[in-house]
Protein backbone atom coordinates (compact mmCIF):
# COMPACT_ATOMS: atom_id res chain seq x y z
CA UNK A 1 0.00 0.00 0.00
CA UNK A 2 2.86 2.36 0.80
CA UNK A 3 4.28 1.75 -2.65
CA UNK A 4 0.94 2.45 -4.21
CA UNK A 5 0.44 5.79 -2.44
CA UNK A 6 3.93 6.83 -3.44
CA UNK A 7 3.17 5.85 -6.99
CA UNK A 8 -0.21 7.59 -6.79
CA UNK A 9 1.41 10.77 -5.59
CA UNK A 10 3.85 10.67 -8.48
CA UNK A 11 1.00 10.21 -10.94
CA UNK A 12 -0.86 13.19 -9.51
CA UNK A 13 2.32 15.27 -9.64
CA UNK A 14 2.95 14.27 -13.25
CA UNK A 15 -0.62 15.18 -14.17
CA UNK A 16 -0.34 18.56 -12.49
CA UNK A 17 2.92 19.28 -14.28
CA UNK A 18 1.46 18.31 -17.65
CA UNK A 19 -1.54 20.58 -17.00
CA UNK A 20 0.68 23.55 -16.28
CA UNK A 21 2.59 22.92 -19.49
CA UNK A 22 -0.56 22.32 -21.57
CA UNK A 23 -1.07 25.95 -22.55
CA UNK A 24 2.40 27.34 -23.15
CA UNK A 25 2.71 31.00 -23.96
CA UNK A 26 4.24 30.54 -27.40
CA UNK A 27 1.83 27.91 -28.74
CA UNK A 28 -0.03 28.89 -31.89
CA UNK A 29 -3.14 26.81 -32.51
CA UNK A 30 -4.18 26.53 -36.15
CA UNK A 31 -7.50 24.88 -37.06
CA UNK A 32 -7.41 23.87 -40.73
CA UNK A 33 -9.65 22.03 -43.17
CA UNK A 34 -8.86 18.29 -43.44
CA UNK A 35 -7.79 18.68 -47.08
CA UNK A 36 -4.92 20.92 -45.90
CA UNK A 37 -3.45 18.16 -43.68
CA UNK A 38 -0.25 17.39 -45.60
CA UNK A 39 0.43 20.91 -46.85
CA UNK A 40 -0.08 22.57 -43.46
CA UNK A 41 2.14 20.03 -41.70
CA UNK A 42 4.97 21.15 -43.96
CA UNK A 43 4.08 24.84 -43.62
CA UNK A 44 4.00 24.54 -39.82
CA UNK A 45 7.40 22.84 -39.71
CA UNK A 46 8.98 25.56 -41.87
CA UNK A 47 7.25 28.31 -39.87
CA UNK A 48 8.53 26.82 -36.60
CA UNK A 49 12.09 26.67 -37.90
CA UNK A 50 11.89 30.35 -38.88
CA UNK A 51 10.26 31.44 -35.63
CA UNK A 52 12.25 29.72 -32.89
CA UNK A 53 10.27 29.32 -29.70
CA UNK A 54 6.91 29.23 -31.46
CA UNK A 55 5.19 25.86 -31.56
CA UNK A 56 2.37 25.39 -34.08
CA UNK A 57 -0.41 23.07 -32.92
CA UNK A 58 -2.42 21.81 -35.88
CA UNK A 59 -6.05 20.78 -35.54
CA UNK A 60 -7.55 19.24 -38.69
CA UNK A 61 -11.20 18.45 -39.35
CA UNK A 62 -14.28 19.31 -41.37
CA UNK A 63 -14.43 23.11 -41.68
CA UNK A 64 -17.90 23.38 -40.15
CA UNK A 65 -16.82 21.16 -37.23
CA UNK A 66 -13.81 23.42 -36.65
CA UNK A 67 -16.10 26.44 -36.69
CA UNK A 68 -18.40 24.76 -34.15
CA UNK A 69 -15.37 24.29 -31.87
CA UNK A 70 -14.28 27.91 -32.26
CA UNK A 71 -17.82 29.17 -31.63
CA UNK A 72 -17.81 27.19 -28.36
CA UNK A 73 -14.66 29.00 -27.26
CA UNK A 74 -11.90 26.61 -28.35
CA UNK A 75 -8.54 28.41 -27.94
CA UNK A 76 -7.81 28.70 -31.66
CA UNK A 77 -5.60 31.47 -33.11
CA UNK A 78 -5.84 30.88 -36.88
CA UNK A 79 -8.67 29.31 -38.89
CA UNK A 80 -8.32 28.04 -42.48
CA UNK A 81 -11.56 26.82 -44.04
CA UNK A 82 -12.19 24.99 -47.31
CA UNK A 83 -15.06 27.23 -48.37
CA UNK A 84 -16.24 30.84 -48.10
CA UNK A 85 -19.60 29.76 -46.65
CA UNK A 86 -18.06 28.52 -43.39
CA UNK A 87 -15.83 31.59 -43.07
CA UNK A 88 -18.85 33.84 -43.77
CA UNK A 89 -20.62 32.23 -40.84
CA UNK A 90 -17.56 32.77 -38.64
CA UNK A 91 -17.59 36.46 -39.67
CA UNK A 92 -21.34 36.75 -38.95
CA UNK A 93 -20.72 35.52 -35.42
CA UNK A 94 -17.90 38.07 -34.96
CA UNK A 95 -15.33 35.33 -34.45
CA UNK A 96 -12.73 36.80 -36.83
CA UNK A 97 -10.19 39.54 -36.21
CA UNK A 98 -11.28 42.42 -38.43
CA UNK A 99 -9.37 42.71 -41.71
CA UNK A 100 -7.41 39.48 -41.25
CA UNK A 101 -9.42 37.35 -43.70
CA UNK A 102 -7.73 36.47 -47.00
CA UNK A 103 -8.19 33.84 -49.71
CA UNK A 104 -4.91 31.94 -49.75
CA UNK A 105 -5.32 29.01 -52.10
CA UNK A 106 -7.64 27.15 -54.48
CA UNK A 107 -8.47 23.56 -55.28
CA UNK A 108 -10.74 21.55 -57.55
CA UNK A 109 -13.28 18.82 -56.94
CA UNK A 110 -12.84 15.43 -58.64
CA UNK A 111 -14.63 12.10 -58.80
CA UNK A 112 -12.36 9.20 -57.88
CA UNK A 113 -12.88 5.44 -58.13
CA UNK A 114 -10.97 2.41 -56.86
CA UNK A 115 -8.22 1.38 -59.33
CA UNK A 116 -10.31 -1.54 -60.61
CA UNK A 117 -13.48 0.59 -60.87
CA UNK A 118 -15.25 1.54 -64.11
CA UNK A 119 -13.93 4.43 -66.19
CA UNK A 120 -16.28 7.35 -65.55
CA UNK A 121 -16.21 10.57 -67.53
CA UNK A 122 -19.18 12.64 -66.30
CA UNK A 123 -21.63 12.99 -63.40
CA UNK A 124 -24.54 11.31 -65.22
CA UNK A 125 -22.52 8.05 -65.32
CA UNK A 126 -22.94 7.76 -61.55
CA UNK A 127 -26.63 6.86 -62.10
CA UNK A 128 -26.44 3.24 -63.37
CA UNK A 129 -26.85 0.51 -60.72
CA UNK A 130 -23.24 -0.70 -61.12
CA UNK A 131 -22.34 2.34 -59.01
CA UNK A 132 -23.93 1.20 -55.75
CA UNK A 133 -22.23 3.52 -53.27
CA UNK A 134 -20.83 7.01 -53.53
CA UNK A 135 -18.79 8.59 -50.75
CA UNK A 136 -18.92 12.31 -50.10
CA UNK A 137 -18.38 14.58 -47.15
CA UNK A 138 -21.52 15.25 -45.15
CA UNK A 139 -22.79 18.54 -46.65
CA UNK A 140 -23.89 19.65 -43.17
CA UNK A 141 -20.30 19.97 -42.02
CA UNK A 142 -17.88 19.20 -44.88
CA UNK A 143 -17.24 21.80 -47.61
CA UNK A 144 -16.20 19.11 -50.14
CA UNK A 145 -19.66 17.61 -49.63
CA UNK A 146 -21.25 21.02 -50.16
CA UNK A 147 -19.39 21.57 -53.42
CA UNK A 148 -20.43 18.05 -54.54
CA UNK A 149 -24.06 18.70 -53.60
CA UNK A 150 -24.09 22.02 -55.47
CA UNK A 151 -22.60 20.37 -58.58
CA UNK A 152 -25.05 17.45 -58.45
CA UNK A 153 -28.01 19.75 -57.88
CA UNK A 154 -26.94 21.87 -60.82
CA UNK A 155 -26.82 18.68 -62.92
CA UNK A 156 -30.25 17.63 -61.60
CA UNK A 157 -28.82 14.40 -60.13
CA UNK A 158 -28.82 15.00 -56.38
CA UNK A 159 -32.16 13.44 -55.41
CA UNK A 160 -31.76 10.52 -57.81
CA UNK A 161 -28.32 9.61 -56.41
CA UNK A 162 -29.18 10.28 -52.77
CA UNK A 163 -29.88 6.61 -51.83
CA UNK A 164 -26.30 5.77 -52.85
CA UNK A 165 -24.58 8.33 -50.65
CA UNK A 166 -22.30 7.39 -47.79
CA UNK A 167 -21.54 10.56 -45.81
CA UNK A 168 -18.03 10.96 -44.45
CA UNK A 169 -17.03 13.08 -41.44
CA UNK A 170 -14.42 14.88 -43.50
CA UNK A 171 -13.07 14.74 -47.02
CA UNK A 172 -10.12 12.51 -46.05
CA UNK A 173 -12.53 9.87 -44.77
CA UNK A 174 -14.38 9.89 -48.11
CA UNK A 175 -10.97 9.43 -49.74
CA UNK A 176 -10.21 6.48 -47.47
CA UNK A 177 -13.54 4.79 -48.30
CA UNK A 178 -12.62 4.88 -51.99
CA UNK A 179 -9.00 3.79 -51.42
CA UNK A 180 -10.25 0.76 -49.44
CA UNK A 181 -12.67 -0.15 -52.23
CA UNK A 182 -15.70 0.06 -49.91
CA UNK A 183 -17.49 2.48 -52.24
CA UNK A 184 -17.60 2.63 -56.04
CA UNK A 185 -16.92 6.34 -56.38
CA UNK A 186 -16.24 9.37 -54.23
CA UNK A 187 -16.11 13.16 -54.35
CA UNK A 188 -12.80 14.53 -53.07
CA UNK A 189 -10.42 17.37 -53.86
CA UNK A 190 -7.79 16.93 -56.56
CA UNK A 191 -5.13 17.39 -53.86
CA UNK A 192 -6.57 14.53 -51.75
CA UNK A 193 -6.56 12.22 -54.78
CA UNK A 194 -2.88 13.07 -55.24
CA UNK A 195 -2.13 12.14 -51.63
CA UNK A 196 -3.36 8.54 -52.23
CA UNK A 197 -2.44 8.37 -55.91
CA UNK A 198 -1.50 4.67 -55.93
CA UNK A 199 -4.72 3.44 -54.35
CA UNK A 200 -7.31 5.07 -56.59
CA UNK A 201 -7.80 6.68 -59.96
CA UNK A 202 -9.14 10.11 -60.80
CA UNK A 203 -12.12 9.81 -63.14
CA UNK A 204 -12.87 13.44 -63.99
CA UNK A 205 -12.93 16.97 -62.62
CA UNK A 206 -16.32 18.13 -61.36
CA UNK A 207 -17.54 21.55 -62.50
CA UNK A 208 -18.55 23.39 -59.30
CA UNK A 209 -20.99 26.34 -59.41
CA UNK A 210 -18.71 28.28 -57.04
CA UNK A 211 -14.90 28.00 -57.24
CA UNK A 212 -13.15 26.02 -54.47
CA UNK A 213 -11.37 28.81 -52.59
CA UNK A 214 -9.77 28.56 -49.14
CA UNK A 215 -9.97 31.58 -46.83
CA UNK A 216 -7.72 32.02 -43.78
CA UNK A 217 -8.26 34.42 -40.86
CA UNK A 218 -7.02 35.26 -37.37
CA UNK A 219 -9.54 34.49 -34.64
CA UNK A 220 -10.75 37.44 -32.55
CA UNK A 221 -9.61 37.29 -28.95
CA UNK A 222 -6.40 35.43 -29.78
CA UNK A 223 -3.60 35.91 -27.29
CA UNK A 224 -1.10 35.21 -30.08
CA UNK A 225 -2.00 38.09 -32.40
CA UNK A 226 1.53 38.68 -33.69
CA UNK A 227 2.38 35.03 -34.30
CA UNK A 228 -1.07 34.44 -35.85
CA UNK A 229 -0.56 37.32 -38.29
CA UNK A 230 2.96 36.15 -39.09
CA UNK A 231 1.59 32.67 -39.82
CA UNK A 232 -1.10 33.90 -42.24
CA UNK A 233 1.47 36.16 -43.93
CA UNK A 234 3.80 33.19 -44.26
CA UNK A 235 1.03 31.10 -45.86
CA UNK A 236 0.44 33.91 -48.38
CA UNK A 237 4.18 34.47 -49.00
CA UNK A 238 5.91 33.08 -52.12
CA UNK A 239 7.49 30.30 -50.00
CA UNK A 240 4.13 29.38 -48.49
CA UNK A 241 2.45 29.39 -51.88
CA UNK A 242 5.24 27.27 -53.35
CA UNK A 243 4.76 24.69 -50.59
CA UNK A 244 1.01 24.59 -51.26
CA UNK A 245 1.76 24.23 -54.97
CA UNK A 246 3.87 21.14 -54.28
CA UNK A 247 0.74 19.48 -52.86
CA UNK A 248 -1.32 20.41 -55.92
CA UNK A 249 -3.03 23.54 -54.64
CA UNK A 250 -3.29 26.51 -57.01
CA UNK A 251 -3.37 30.25 -56.48
CA UNK A 252 -6.81 31.69 -55.68
Amino acid at each position, binding site marked *: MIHWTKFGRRVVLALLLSVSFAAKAADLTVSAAASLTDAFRELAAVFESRNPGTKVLLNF*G*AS*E*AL*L*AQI*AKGAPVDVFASADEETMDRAAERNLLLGGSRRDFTANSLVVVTPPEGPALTRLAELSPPRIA*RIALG*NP*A*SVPAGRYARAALQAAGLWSRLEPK*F*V*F*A*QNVRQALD*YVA*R*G*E*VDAGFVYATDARAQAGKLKVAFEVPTPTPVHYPIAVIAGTSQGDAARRFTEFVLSPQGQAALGRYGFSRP
Partner: protein
Amino acid sequence: MGSAWIPLALTLKVAAWATAIDLVLGVAMALALARGRFPGRDTLDAILTLPMVLPPTVLGYYLLVLVGKRGWLGGWLYDTFGINLIFTWQGAVIAAAVVAFPLVMKSARAAFEGVDTQLENAARVLGLPERWVFFRVTLPMAWRGILAGVLLAAARSMGEFGATLMVAGSIPGRTQTLSIAIYEAVQAGRDADANILVGVISAACVVVLLVAGRLAPGRGAP
Protein backbone atom coordinates in the same frame (compact mmCIF):
# COMPACT_ATOMS: atom_id res chain seq x y z
CA MET B 1 -38.64 16.59 -33.48
CA GLY B 2 -39.78 13.41 -35.22
CA SER B 3 -36.38 12.69 -36.76
CA ALA B 4 -35.02 11.66 -33.34
CA TRP B 5 -37.19 8.53 -33.51
CA ILE B 6 -35.40 7.12 -36.54
CA PRO B 7 -31.93 7.00 -34.91
CA LEU B 8 -33.55 5.83 -31.65
CA ALA B 9 -35.34 2.94 -33.38
CA LEU B 10 -32.15 2.01 -35.21
CA THR B 11 -30.12 2.17 -31.99
CA LEU B 12 -32.59 -0.16 -30.24
CA LYS B 13 -32.61 -2.56 -33.21
CA VAL B 14 -28.80 -2.69 -33.36
CA ALA B 15 -28.48 -3.07 -29.57
CA ALA B 16 -31.12 -5.82 -29.46
CA TRP B 17 -29.44 -7.89 -32.19
CA ALA B 18 -25.96 -7.35 -30.76
CA THR B 19 -27.12 -8.35 -27.28
CA ALA B 20 -28.91 -11.46 -28.59
CA ILE B 21 -25.77 -12.58 -30.45
CA ASP B 22 -23.63 -11.90 -27.37
CA LEU B 23 -26.05 -13.86 -25.17
CA VAL B 24 -25.73 -17.00 -27.28
CA LEU B 25 -22.00 -16.78 -28.09
CA GLY B 26 -21.01 -15.31 -24.70
CA VAL B 27 -22.79 -18.01 -22.67
CA ALA B 28 -21.44 -20.81 -24.88
CA MET B 29 -17.91 -19.44 -24.64
CA ALA B 30 -18.22 -18.84 -20.89
CA LEU B 31 -19.36 -22.43 -20.36
CA ALA B 32 -16.45 -23.75 -22.38
CA LEU B 33 -14.01 -21.61 -20.40
CA ALA B 34 -15.56 -22.38 -17.01
CA ARG B 35 -16.00 -26.14 -17.46
CA GLY B 36 -13.58 -27.08 -20.23
CA ARG B 37 -10.02 -28.22 -19.58
CA PHE B 38 -8.01 -27.58 -22.69
CA PRO B 39 -4.62 -26.09 -23.52
CA GLY B 40 -4.61 -22.38 -24.32
CA ARG B 41 -7.70 -21.71 -22.23
CA ASP B 42 -6.24 -18.66 -20.52
CA THR B 43 -4.93 -17.30 -23.81
CA LEU B 44 -8.37 -17.72 -25.40
CA ASP B 45 -9.97 -15.94 -22.45
CA ALA B 46 -7.49 -13.09 -22.80
CA ILE B 47 -8.12 -12.73 -26.55
CA LEU B 48 -11.90 -12.79 -26.09
CA THR B 49 -11.61 -10.15 -23.36
CA LEU B 50 -9.54 -7.84 -25.59
CA PRO B 51 -12.54 -5.82 -26.89
CA MET B 52 -13.08 -4.61 -23.32
CA VAL B 53 -9.64 -3.00 -23.11
CA LEU B 54 -8.78 -2.12 -26.71
CA PRO B 55 -9.84 1.30 -27.98
CA PRO B 56 -12.99 1.02 -30.14
CA THR B 57 -11.07 2.56 -33.04
CA VAL B 58 -8.65 -0.38 -32.96
CA LEU B 59 -11.58 -2.80 -33.05
CA GLY B 60 -13.15 -0.78 -35.85
CA TYR B 61 -9.94 -1.00 -37.82
CA TYR B 62 -9.63 -4.76 -37.24
CA LEU B 63 -13.23 -5.22 -38.39
CA LEU B 64 -12.72 -3.00 -41.41
CA VAL B 65 -9.68 -5.04 -42.43
CA LEU B 66 -11.48 -8.32 -41.70
CA VAL B 67 -14.99 -7.82 -43.11
CA GLY B 68 -14.23 -5.04 -45.62
CA LYS B 69 -14.63 -5.79 -49.31
CA ARG B 70 -10.89 -6.45 -49.51
CA GLY B 71 -10.64 -8.24 -46.17
CA TRP B 72 -10.26 -12.01 -46.24
CA LEU B 73 -13.62 -12.71 -44.63
CA GLY B 74 -15.47 -9.80 -46.23
CA GLY B 75 -13.94 -10.55 -49.63
CA TRP B 76 -15.10 -14.16 -49.41
CA LEU B 77 -18.60 -13.14 -48.31
CA TYR B 78 -18.82 -10.67 -51.16
CA ASP B 79 -17.49 -13.00 -53.85
CA THR B 80 -19.52 -16.02 -52.70
CA PHE B 81 -22.82 -14.54 -51.55
CA GLY B 82 -22.64 -10.92 -52.67
CA ILE B 83 -22.90 -9.91 -49.01
CA ASN B 84 -21.43 -6.57 -48.04
CA LEU B 85 -21.33 -5.65 -44.35
CA ILE B 86 -19.60 -2.27 -44.46
CA PHE B 87 -22.05 0.68 -44.31
CA THR B 88 -24.98 -1.55 -43.34
CA TRP B 89 -26.91 -1.85 -40.07
CA GLN B 90 -25.74 -5.46 -39.89
CA GLY B 91 -22.20 -4.07 -39.85
CA ALA B 92 -23.21 -1.87 -36.91
CA VAL B 93 -24.58 -4.99 -35.15
CA ILE B 94 -21.24 -6.78 -35.62
CA ALA B 95 -19.32 -3.79 -34.25
CA ALA B 96 -21.60 -3.47 -31.21
CA ALA B 97 -21.60 -7.25 -30.62
CA VAL B 98 -17.78 -7.42 -30.66
CA VAL B 99 -17.41 -4.46 -28.32
CA ALA B 100 -19.99 -5.75 -25.82
CA PHE B 101 -19.09 -9.47 -26.03
CA PRO B 102 -16.65 -9.64 -23.06
CA LEU B 103 -19.27 -8.11 -20.75
CA VAL B 104 -21.55 -11.13 -21.24
CA MET B 105 -18.73 -13.68 -21.34
CA LYS B 106 -16.99 -12.42 -18.19
CA SER B 107 -20.20 -12.23 -16.13
CA ALA B 108 -21.42 -15.61 -17.38
CA ARG B 109 -18.09 -17.29 -16.70
CA ALA B 110 -18.04 -15.98 -13.13
CA ALA B 111 -21.66 -17.10 -12.72
CA PHE B 112 -20.92 -20.62 -14.01
CA GLU B 113 -17.87 -20.92 -11.80
CA GLY B 114 -20.03 -19.98 -8.84
CA VAL B 115 -22.34 -22.95 -9.44
CA ASP B 116 -21.59 -25.86 -7.11
CA THR B 117 -20.46 -28.76 -9.35
CA GLN B 118 -21.64 -31.23 -6.69
CA LEU B 119 -25.23 -30.27 -7.51
CA GLU B 120 -24.60 -30.90 -11.21
CA ASN B 121 -23.00 -34.25 -10.38
CA ALA B 122 -25.96 -35.15 -8.17
CA ALA B 123 -28.28 -34.52 -11.12
CA ARG B 124 -26.07 -36.70 -13.33
CA VAL B 125 -26.04 -39.51 -10.77
CA LEU B 126 -29.83 -39.32 -10.67
CA GLY B 127 -29.85 -39.95 -14.40
CA LEU B 128 -30.50 -36.49 -15.89
CA PRO B 129 -29.11 -36.24 -19.45
CA GLU B 130 -26.17 -33.81 -19.85
CA ARG B 131 -28.24 -31.27 -21.81
CA TRP B 132 -30.87 -31.11 -19.07
CA VAL B 133 -28.21 -30.79 -16.39
CA PHE B 134 -27.32 -27.50 -18.04
CA PHE B 135 -30.86 -26.23 -18.57
CA ARG B 136 -32.36 -27.40 -15.25
CA VAL B 137 -29.46 -27.10 -12.83
CA THR B 138 -26.59 -24.92 -14.11
CA LEU B 139 -28.55 -22.22 -15.93
CA PRO B 140 -31.17 -21.60 -13.21
CA MET B 141 -28.36 -21.08 -10.72
CA ALA B 142 -26.29 -18.83 -12.97
CA TRP B 143 -28.94 -16.78 -14.74
CA ARG B 144 -28.70 -13.73 -12.52
CA GLY B 145 -25.01 -13.28 -13.25
CA ILE B 146 -25.69 -13.81 -16.95
CA LEU B 147 -28.55 -11.30 -16.88
CA ALA B 148 -26.32 -8.70 -15.26
CA GLY B 149 -23.81 -9.19 -18.08
CA VAL B 150 -26.53 -9.02 -20.72
CA LEU B 151 -27.86 -5.72 -19.37
CA LEU B 152 -24.36 -4.24 -19.34
CA ALA B 153 -23.88 -5.46 -22.91
CA ALA B 154 -27.19 -3.92 -23.99
CA ALA B 155 -26.23 -0.58 -22.45
CA ARG B 156 -22.76 -0.74 -24.03
CA SER B 157 -24.24 -1.59 -27.44
CA MET B 158 -26.63 1.35 -27.27
CA GLY B 159 -23.76 3.76 -26.67
CA GLU B 160 -21.29 2.21 -29.14
CA PHE B 161 -19.66 4.89 -31.26
CA GLY B 162 -16.06 4.43 -32.41
CA ALA B 163 -16.09 0.98 -33.99
CA THR B 164 -19.60 1.54 -35.37
CA LEU B 165 -18.62 4.77 -37.10
CA MET B 166 -15.65 3.07 -38.75
CA VAL B 167 -17.53 -0.03 -39.90
CA ALA B 168 -21.05 1.23 -40.59
CA GLY B 169 -20.40 4.88 -41.35
CA SER B 170 -23.10 7.46 -40.76
CA ILE B 171 -25.97 7.02 -43.19
CA PRO B 172 -29.13 8.74 -41.93
CA GLY B 173 -31.95 6.24 -41.47
CA ARG B 174 -29.74 3.24 -42.20
CA THR B 175 -26.63 3.24 -40.00
CA GLN B 176 -26.85 6.54 -38.13
CA THR B 177 -27.41 5.50 -34.51
CA LEU B 178 -28.16 8.00 -31.75
CA SER B 179 -24.57 8.42 -30.61
CA ILE B 180 -23.44 9.04 -34.20
CA ALA B 181 -26.36 11.40 -34.89
CA ILE B 182 -25.32 13.42 -31.82
CA TYR B 183 -21.73 13.60 -33.06
CA GLU B 184 -22.89 14.76 -36.50
CA ALA B 185 -25.21 17.40 -35.04
CA VAL B 186 -22.41 18.85 -32.89
CA GLN B 187 -19.96 18.74 -35.83
CA ALA B 188 -22.40 20.73 -37.94
CA GLY B 189 -23.07 23.20 -35.11
CA ARG B 190 -26.76 22.11 -34.88
CA ASP B 191 -27.01 22.45 -31.11
CA ALA B 192 -30.81 22.36 -31.02
CA ASP B 193 -30.83 18.90 -32.67
CA ALA B 194 -27.99 17.73 -30.43
CA ASN B 195 -29.98 18.77 -27.34
CA ILE B 196 -33.01 16.75 -28.42
CA LEU B 197 -30.94 13.66 -29.27
CA VAL B 198 -28.97 13.87 -26.02
CA GLY B 199 -32.26 14.12 -24.13
CA VAL B 200 -33.64 11.09 -25.96
CA ILE B 201 -30.63 8.85 -25.25
CA SER B 202 -30.42 10.02 -21.63
CA ALA B 203 -34.09 9.14 -21.14
CA ALA B 204 -33.61 5.78 -22.89
CA CYS B 205 -30.68 4.96 -20.60
CA VAL B 206 -32.68 5.89 -17.49
CA VAL B 207 -35.41 3.48 -18.67
CA VAL B 208 -32.83 0.71 -19.20
CA LEU B 209 -31.37 1.29 -15.73
CA LEU B 210 -34.83 1.26 -14.13
CA VAL B 211 -35.66 -2.02 -15.88
CA ALA B 212 -32.27 -3.40 -14.86
CA GLY B 213 -32.98 -2.35 -11.26
CA ARG B 214 -36.29 -4.26 -11.31
CA LEU B 215 -34.61 -7.38 -12.63
CA ALA B 216 -31.51 -7.06 -10.48
CA PRO B 217 -30.73 -9.97 -8.17
CA GLY B 218 -31.14 -9.73 -4.43
CA ARG B 219 -34.11 -7.39 -4.31
CA GLY B 220 -36.87 -9.17 -2.40
CA ALA B 221 -35.73 -12.48 -3.85
CA PRO B 222 -35.15 -15.35 -1.43
